[in-house]
């Protein structure tokens, strides 16, 4: 299910045989993938599927078996150097709470060679986050805005966001992603996002990876998703016919039968009911449940 022939540019991230064990339990089972530059990747999976472990390996936060290269470097060996060109938000509450916003920016100016205090201040213009405010006194949404301002002010080639909007209300979530797209993304930058609220980021993704039980079950461009997968709301009179084609997933919604097909001609399905492209969440449910008993 991989669609690796996407770009001729040197990949930003390469993983070959990426495995991770905690004790006797193997969490990642030999992942292979390339992430080219200038793309917006979504990494989606259930809780415990291995998303964060994969990101931790990419960010050099954990040891692993296999080979991982990020911007040509081994992330576990060269994390500190790599972080000059990689930024990440792992959790909205992870900023040091004892600092004031002004102190945080001053600190980053001296620690991070690619951080621009001017840009960070600019990103905070129009928000309720004041420079003299103590981070511990900011609301969850304000901390998210501040953290986003911090990472966007870092001139990084790769931005990794692990559940960046967890616990935020819908207004903040939408503002967060809009800001990211409008003020940060360029063709040179690559964005890798994991989230459970997959419908909220679907519009911005160029590529998608589904991970289940430590293995990639889908890795492809969004354009390919829409040509390869089809959702059919079957005409009740032709239900048996549709089922005979072999949907990868089927469920009943409000009395209607919805099916997801993989690689079936859309025109053929159109004769059996209403066809559409499944949303990522529908596809996710379909692919996650396939093969389960």
């Amino acid at each position, binding site marked *: 299910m991989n669609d690796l022939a996407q770009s001729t540019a040197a990949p930003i991230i390469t993983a070959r045989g990426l495995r991770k064990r905690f004790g006797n339990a193997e969490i990642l089972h030999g992942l292979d993938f390339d992430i080219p530059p200038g793309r917006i990747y979504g990494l989606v999976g259930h809780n415990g599927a291995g998303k964060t472990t994969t990101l*931790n390996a990419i*960010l050099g*936060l*954990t*040891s692993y078996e296999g080979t991982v290269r990020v911007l040509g470097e081994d992330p576990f060996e060269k*994390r*500190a*150097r*790599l*972080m*000059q060109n*990689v*930024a*990440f*938000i*792992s*959790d909205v*509450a*992870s*900023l*040091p*709470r*004892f*600092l004031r916003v002004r*102190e945080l920016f*001053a*600190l*980053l100016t*001296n*620690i*991070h*060679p690619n951080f621009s205090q001017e840009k960070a201040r600019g990103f905070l213009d129009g928000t309720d986050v004041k420079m003299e405010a103590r981070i511990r006194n900011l609301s969850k949404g304000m901390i998210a805005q501040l953290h986003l301002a911090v990472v966007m002010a870092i001139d990084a080639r790769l931005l990794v966001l692990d559940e960046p909007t967890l616990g935020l209300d819908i207004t903040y979530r939408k503002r967060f992603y809009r800001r990211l797209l409008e003020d940060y993304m360029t063709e040179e930058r690559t964005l890798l996002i994991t989230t459970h609220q997959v419908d909220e980021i679907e519009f911005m993704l160029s590529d998608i990876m589904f991970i289940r039980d430590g293995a990639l079950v889908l890795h492809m461009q969004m354009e390919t998703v829409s040509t390869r997968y089809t959702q059919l709301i079957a005409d009740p009179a032709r239900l048996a016919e549709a089922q005979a084609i072999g949907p990868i997933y089927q469920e009943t919604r409000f009395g209607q039968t919805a099916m997801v097909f993989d690689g079936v001609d859309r025109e053929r399905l159109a004769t059996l009911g209403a066809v559409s492209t499944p949303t990522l969440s529908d596809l996710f449910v379909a692919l996650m449940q396939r093969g389960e008993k």
Partner: protein
Amino acid sequence: MKTLTALIRREYLEHRGAFLYAPTLILVVLLIITASGVAFGRFQLDERMALLPALKVFEFGTLALSALWALYLMAALFFYYADAFSADLRNNAMLFWKSMPVSDFGILASKMLAGLSLFPLLILAAMLLTALIVFGGTSLSALTLGIPVPSLFAYLSSLVQIGSFVVVGVALALLWYAPFFAWVGLLSTLFRRWSIPLAFLIPGLAGLAENLLFRNAGPDGGYLLSYLRHRLQFGDNRMEFGEGFLTAGPFAAGPMLGRLVASIDWAQFAGGLIVAALLVLAASAYRRRSVAA
């Protein structure tokens, strides 16, 4: 260097309570006590003391209070290292610090250096202010009692002598005790708040085991505990220092420092610094593999 300075400043911002606010409070209390002592005539300068009694009282008071400040510094540093090496785990901040282009060793080394540079400087400043309070108290008491008041030059000369002795003595003591600070720092990295009891429990149990297994062999209490007893003692014994102080005229730093330097086991001193560096290295190796948020 810019990064290291910024990280040391970060330590100051996070831990200034013990090294700035608490000493300031102590100084205010000391000032109030001294002022009320002078106002109510509670300080009696003994005329039978040496030729310049007021100066001698100033020297004695300054040295005694400096010794208390030094004890405060050592205790505060012990608690500082027990906290600072795991402080990044608070409020999920570890992953923020790991997103910075600084190695784990760099972060921990900055904590170690903050405790051996900036914080002692703050306490030395408190010692200097204490000397000023003692100067004020001594001079006003001498005036009240009609005892000759030493000249400002005599006070300054004395202060320089005491200051030289205290600065060098504290610097040597900090380096002498560096492996103990690094030990509790390593334990903090591994066991967080349990580092304080474990810092004593582990050598205590090891000493007990040695005594049980190799009874009657080696020195009284066993090799380990008698070594630690010896290693915890810094410089000459107090009595000799006291005699040196009481028999001399105005305090002279040179002979006292000479005695202090001669009393140090320099092989242990150098070995201790190497052990301290290795302990910080071990702590950073563990921290590097830890992604606990």
